[in-house]
């Protein structure tokens, strides 16, 4: 298949399945963005790091998909185990994020002891990178479809290119998340974001453990 055509196919696949990516990344991305400080630029940077790490996750998966062929993408047992491991790791990162977010707050927070300038920047970068990488490895249906197509490519470079185009297609759907940037952060927003992260982490943890124990959850 010509490179141009395969890139076009991947781009369209990414654009078409963007809402599904948005839905699967939303529970991770929205609370963690809300736990950041107010500011469009800050959020743009967070989202860039998140998406770059997600691209890295895609590329890693592209390498694996191409190396071991499409079998790894569709065999239920390794897929279940990988999903389980990713979910447990996601839960761990979210819990860490929720814990560390208590140290950062916008200057509008009521309790001045909670404000530690500089703390949240590091957490934001590493947290966004970890969450982006793990959501990049999340085996949602469109991602598996892209994995199977990438496995059918003639070379590793073609598989990587296919995933890069797929990534660009899906990433356009993440732009609206920047609208969370201007929302004023106060103690209430930060607390809600942290609590939501814990709840979502508990969900991922329970799902991850169930998957690692070999229990099928929601058709995965």
């Amino acid at each position, binding site marked *: 298949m010509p490179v141009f055509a395969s890139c076009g196919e991947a781009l369209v696949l990414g654009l078409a399945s963007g809402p599904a990516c948005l*839905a699967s990344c939303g529970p991770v991305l929205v609370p963690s963005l809300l736990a950041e400080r107010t500011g469009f630029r800050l959020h743009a940077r967070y989202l860039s790091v998140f998406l770059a790490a997600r691209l890295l996750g895609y590329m890693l998966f592209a390498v694996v998909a191409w190396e071991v062929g499409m079998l790894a993408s569709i065999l239920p047992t390794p897929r279940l185990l990988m999903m389980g491991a990713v979910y447990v790791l996601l839960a761990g990162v979210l819990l860490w994020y929720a814990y560390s977010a208590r140290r950062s707050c916008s200057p509008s927070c009521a309790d001045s002891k909670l404000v530690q300038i500089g703390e949240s920047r590091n957490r934001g970068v590493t947290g966004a990178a970890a969450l982006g990488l793990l959501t990049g490895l999340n085996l949602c249906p469109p991602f598996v479809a892209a994995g199977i197509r990438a496995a059918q490519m003639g070379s590793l470079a073609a598989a990587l290119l296919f995933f890069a185009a797929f990534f660009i297609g899906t990433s356009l759907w993440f732009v609206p998340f920047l609208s969370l940037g201007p929302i004023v952060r106060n103690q209430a927003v930060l607390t*809600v974001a942290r609590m939501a992260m814990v709840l979502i982490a508990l969900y991922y943890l329970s799902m991850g453990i169930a998957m690692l124990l070999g229990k099928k959850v929601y058709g995965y």
Partner: protein
Amino acid sequence: MATDTRILPLAHPAPRGILWSLFLTLPILIWSLFMMFFRPGASAELLSHIASAITALFMTVLFFMMMRTRNTYRWRRIFFVSLGVLFPIGFIHNLIVMRGSMGIPIEEMIAGRTPFCFMPIPLLILPAVFTRTLVFPGSIVGASGHGIAVMVALWLALTLVMGKGWCSYACFFGGIEEGVAAIPARARIRKLDPRWRYLPWAVLLAMVLLSLAIFEPAYCMWLCPFKAVTEYVAARNMLGLVQNVIFVLLFAGLVIVLPFLTKKRTQCAWFCPFGAFQSIFNKISIFEMKIDKERCKPCLLCQNACPNLSLSKESVARGETLLSCMKCGACVDVCPRKAIVWHIKGTQIAWKPERARLMFLYSAWALAVMFGGSIIAQGIYTILHVFI
């Protein structure tokens, strides 16, 4: 300037005259009789008529007492606790008759025969926007009023009028914990961390996002405490068992134990995502509670009386309740200086508060008769049907 923080003795308002109270109650009597005897789903049996008559009388007497005593909370609470107790009785009886069990099997879900309650409404919005699909295993029209469209229409009508008053006059779940909270003479736990007030918003955020991600109403599947007294997922595997254990633990903790210890509606104040969602509509509703700062001596009796933790020192100082106010009237009834008043947006705070109260109560009670009254009548009918 020193602030007078003495707690003044409770000022019991002079009761209204009986004839005037009866006159004010007349519209509700007519409405109650109409709604009870012409309600959808009522059968032509004698027992059904008896249940309807008892309910109409019950709702009318409570409204009369509100008019006569000028107190709202205690009479509303009798209605609300009755609603909370009688709803599971009627509902479970129906499930047992139709299905033979409270557990809903997956086949019933696939067939779209899950009765719809209002709780998942906020969870349906994002999936509907993105995919034009309702992520609930029920039908839009449904049978005997259990369809999604009927419930959403009822919810919308009540919400536009009452805002979060829904949680005090319409919700058929909150009555159980309000009843439990009324049992002890005083609270065993008095110091409550105000940060827990944010948890319903976090549950709402998490459940809305997860519902979009997993494409099902995540709250109903995982966290609804009231599954313990309505219908639950038939536990055919470990996952179903875990879900049911969570339901029972949440119900025991948030609806029984904590309300008993704190004398608060802890599930509503600390957990319910629908309540958080409903708070937003307090911005739309024309009715609200206001505090006349000139009259208020900050004795904070209102803060202690509020069952939903919707008053704080800061909000009292600002002369308003928090966004989560359910308009139950507890603060108004307990205020010795009558500084907290029912208020219609756009009017002055001190402008005829009793008139504002009457306007709210007519709207709220009319809707309570229509919605809650039908449920109470169904519960009474079930009891009569089983025991007679």
